[in-house]
């Protein structure tokens, strides 16, 4: 059922442009929202215990590619998040981009992404997972570059695609290694049993590759730079892909494989260090930002770091905290991005230094945004507080004091970021320069309002079914039964003190904003050491390498191409001959008959005329003589098909050559003596090596198995007595198909060349 739902999503995506065009820009998106909504309710209705694999249908049975889904708490939780927030984004996007000329295209990408993302989290078949994983990267590319007329958008889109694309390559190799070790593509079977790796190197390799895939996708340090750039996308996209769902795919993957690898020496330290670094770098880089979306993007990087960090802590409490924090973050950060979009949409700016006093204009929106920000800051009694408490408790019980301190510092920075993002635009003094176009429409506000409401509701009265789902998800990724109790009040514990300390720290950091901005200004000179500049340098280096090799090899001079191609051919033939053992030239010399002698003389005479003449026309005639003589040879040795073709070709070649002659400049000898010597040497080498090659082939005593087969099967199997033709159109028709395709392309190419020649003449 769920597998079909995912596949159906791609159909909905393809229908989206049609829907928007014919149903309208108001009701079209509302109709499209029915898809994520129905998926959402379907996931809620799905029984996720016990974990099981459902197979829908074979896609490519030969490669073991099946549409099979793994239904358990972890995948259902993600599917619910993707479809639930997805429905809100679809509605929000309609109001946000109502007058955009490519609204239909937007929904094609968005719904397509949704289906792909559902595929990533639900897939049991690793190949299906990989296909969907790559599709999310591609849709993300298309959505970031949605304003494709803007060069910055295009550049950011490419950056995201290349960074996550490298991760995708790592992922496919990791999956192939898993397949080789486990003998199955089904995730359900791989995770479901205790396993001893046959080779520790293989396990290590798989782990490193999985880490690479997840770290690039989830923007972990040092690959974090693509996520802030991705803010070039329309804000609904940032809210959805680059905060709530896609960037969590890496976390999803790591958690998925956690039960399999958590005992490996590399796994938890790598997650702890990588996540910890990301957590700090993201939060610290967020502090001096002025752009509301960049601020939120860096804080998302930090939150992703926290999730990975919690996986690295690794006890079952940390797993539960990770699950809870993931949901809490999706709710408040998705909502805050919605808020950022509204501010941008209604005021035309996202610069928090220019924004102020919005609370008086829009009290309802201000309430919503404040709730979301307080949840982000982890203030009692909101859902964000619950999540943070659980995280602190898990690290506290794991007795990692340094990690705990680190987490508290980073959370404190996040509190300040929440203040910058919402407190300043809403509550600082109103700016006279700020032009407010109009009040936000209800469709823009309903999304964040719902998310804020959920943040309050879950914080105060967590529903039984919801905690149960979270506990099941935590159990799945911890690999052991995990208890989870959601609640605001845990008593007077040291963790509660830490929570208060965090908020205090946040207030101090908030007050010191000028200091952070000044530090950032002084640090701009050091940008060249950052990973983003490394990316820039490597992309630019690749472009320079390509330019260099094009300049060197593709000079546009026909002569040089010939020299290159021919000398390569000579070198490879000579190399092959040198490496072949045995006497190559074991052929019997035989005296030729007078007729054969006459043909040979004609051939040589044609050649001599071609080389010696000073007129192009004569040279062509000489070539024709040689060609016809070759044709006669074919005829004498029993190849009438070849001979006929040779004659026809020679005739047409002469005609075409004469036509070309008219267009060439006057025939004169411009080559220097050195060039002539080089050309002579090369021509001789080509002739000699091809000659030797042919003789060596003839001397090869191994009988061909193909020739007797073709001769025997031509009539009975292929209904033709002319073996040559049967080979061409039946036995080896794929070769012929390739050749005639080249011929057709050559025809188009000649047309293009002639058109350009007319232009540049």
């Amino acid at each position: 059922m769920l597998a079909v739902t995912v596949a159906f999503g791609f159909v909905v995506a393809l229908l989206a442009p049609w829907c928007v065009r014919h149903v309208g820009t108001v009701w079209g998106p509302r109709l499209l929202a029915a898809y994520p909504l129905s998926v959402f309710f379907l996931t809620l209705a799905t029984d996720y215990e016990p974990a099981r694999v459902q197979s829908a249908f074979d896609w490519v049975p030969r490669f073991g590619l099946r549409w099979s889904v793994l239904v358990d708490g972890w995948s259902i939780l993600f599917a619910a998040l993707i479809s639930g927030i997805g429905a809100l984004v679809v509605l929000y996007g309609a109001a946000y981009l109502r007058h955009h000329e490519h609204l239909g295209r937007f929904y094609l990408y968005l719904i397509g992404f949704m289906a792909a993302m559902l595929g990533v989290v639900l897939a049991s078949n690793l190949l299906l997972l990989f296909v969907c994983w790559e599709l999310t990267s591609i849709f993300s590319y298309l959505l970031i570059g949605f304003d494709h007329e803007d060069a910055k958008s295009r550049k950011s889109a490419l950056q995201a695609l290349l960074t996550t694309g490298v991760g995708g390559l790592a992922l496919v190799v990791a999956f192939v290694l898993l397949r080789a070790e486990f003998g199955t593509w089904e995730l359900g079977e791989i995770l479901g049993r205790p396993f001893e790796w046959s080779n520790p190197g293989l396990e290590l390799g798989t782990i490193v590759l999985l880490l690479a895939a997840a770290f690039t996708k989830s923007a972990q340090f040092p690959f974090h730079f693509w996520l802030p750039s991705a803010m070039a996308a329309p804000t609904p996209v940032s809210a959805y892909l680059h905060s709530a769902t896609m960037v969590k795919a890496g976390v999803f993957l790591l958690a998925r494989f956690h039960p399999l690898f958590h005992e490996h020496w590399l796994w938890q330290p790598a997650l702890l260090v990588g996540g910890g670094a990301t957590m700090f770098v993201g939060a610290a880089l967020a502090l001096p930002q002025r752009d509301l979306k960049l601020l939120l993007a860096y804080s998302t990087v930090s939150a992703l770091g926290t999730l990975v960090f919690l996986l690295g802590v690794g006890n079952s409490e940390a797993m539960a905290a990770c699950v809870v924090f993931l949901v809490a973050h999706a709710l408040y950060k998705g909502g805050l991005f919605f808020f950022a979009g509204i501010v941008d949409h209604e005021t035309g700016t996202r610069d928090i230094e220019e924004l102020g006093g919005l609370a008086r204009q829009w009290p309802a929106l201000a309430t919503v945004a404040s709730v979301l920000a307080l949840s982000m800051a982890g203030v009692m009694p909101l859902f964000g507080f619950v999540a943070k408490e659980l995280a602190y408790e898990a690290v506290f019980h794991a007795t990692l004091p340094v990690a705990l301190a680190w987490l508290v510092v980073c959370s404190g920075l996040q509190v300040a970021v929440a203040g910058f993002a919402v407190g300043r635009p809403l509550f600082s003094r109103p700016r006279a320069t700020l032009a407010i176009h109009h009040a936000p429409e209800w469709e823009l506000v309903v999304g964040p309002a719902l998310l804020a409401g959920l943040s309050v509701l879950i914080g105060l009265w967590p529903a039984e079914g919801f905690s149960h789902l979270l506990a099941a998800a935590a159990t799945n990724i911890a690999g052991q039964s995990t208890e989870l109790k959601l609640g605001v009040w845990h008593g007077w514990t040291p963790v509660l003190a830490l929570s208060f300390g965090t908020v205090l720290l946040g207030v101090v950091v908030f007050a010191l904003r000028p200091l952070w901005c000044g530090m950032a200004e002084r640090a701009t000179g050091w940008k060249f050491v950052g990973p983003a500049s490394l990316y820039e340098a490597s992309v630019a280096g690749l472009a320079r390498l390509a330019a260099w090799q094009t300049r060197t090899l593709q000079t546009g001079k026909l002569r040089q191409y010939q020299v290159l191609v021919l000398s390569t051919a000579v070198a490879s033939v000579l190399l092959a001959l040198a490496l072949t053992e045995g006497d190559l030239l074991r052929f019997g010399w035989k005296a030729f008959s007078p007729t054969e002698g006459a043909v040979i003389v004609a051939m040589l005479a044609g050649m001599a005329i071609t080389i010696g003449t000073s007129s192009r026309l004569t040279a062509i005639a000489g070539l024709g003589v040689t060609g016809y003589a070759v044709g006669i040879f074919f005829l004498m040795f029993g190849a009438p098909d070849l001979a006929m073709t040779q004659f026809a070709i020679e005739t047409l070649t002469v005609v075409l050559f004469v036509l070309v002659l008219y267009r060439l400049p006057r025939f004169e000898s411009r080559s220097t003596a050195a060039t002539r010597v080089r050309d002579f040497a090369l021509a001789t080498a080509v002739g000699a090596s091809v000659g030797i090659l042919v003789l060596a082939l003839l001397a090869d005593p191994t009988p061909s198995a193909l020739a007797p087969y073709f001769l025997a099967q031509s009539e009975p199997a292929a209904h033709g007595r002319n073996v040559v033709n049967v080979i061409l159109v039946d036995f080896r028709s794929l070769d012929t198909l390739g050749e005639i395709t080249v011929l057709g392309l050559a025809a188009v190419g000649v047309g293009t060349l002639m058109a350009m020649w007319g232009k540049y003449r």
Partner: protein
Amino acid sequence: MRSLILLTASRLLFPLLLLFSAFLLFRGHNAPGGGFVGGLVAAAAVALHALAHGINATQRMVVVTPLKLVAAGLGCALGSGLFGWFSQQPYLTGVWVSLPLLGKAGTPVLFDVGVYLLVVGMVTHVLFLLWEE
């Protein structure tokens, strides 16, 4: 400069050459010939026509755009492979049927017709491009 002899000869030869090219094409499966050489002969007929009557007259006579011939030929060849594919065999597997009057017909013949069309189209296209009055 128009040569009367060439003009007269071409009137006679042009249809004959085309007929000959078709003959080559269809006999190719059992005797020397085939789509490739047939196509070349047909293209040579076009070239002869152009020599005798001038390229403009030839261009008026050839009503099909040569590139369309190329496309049609490629389409024929690609399409001929689908028959085998649809009958659950590898792409391009030959499929033969016995027809009442004509004898046996098979997809390789269609493939060869594709080669023929493509070669005629390609050479004619280049001729038309290069040939200026």
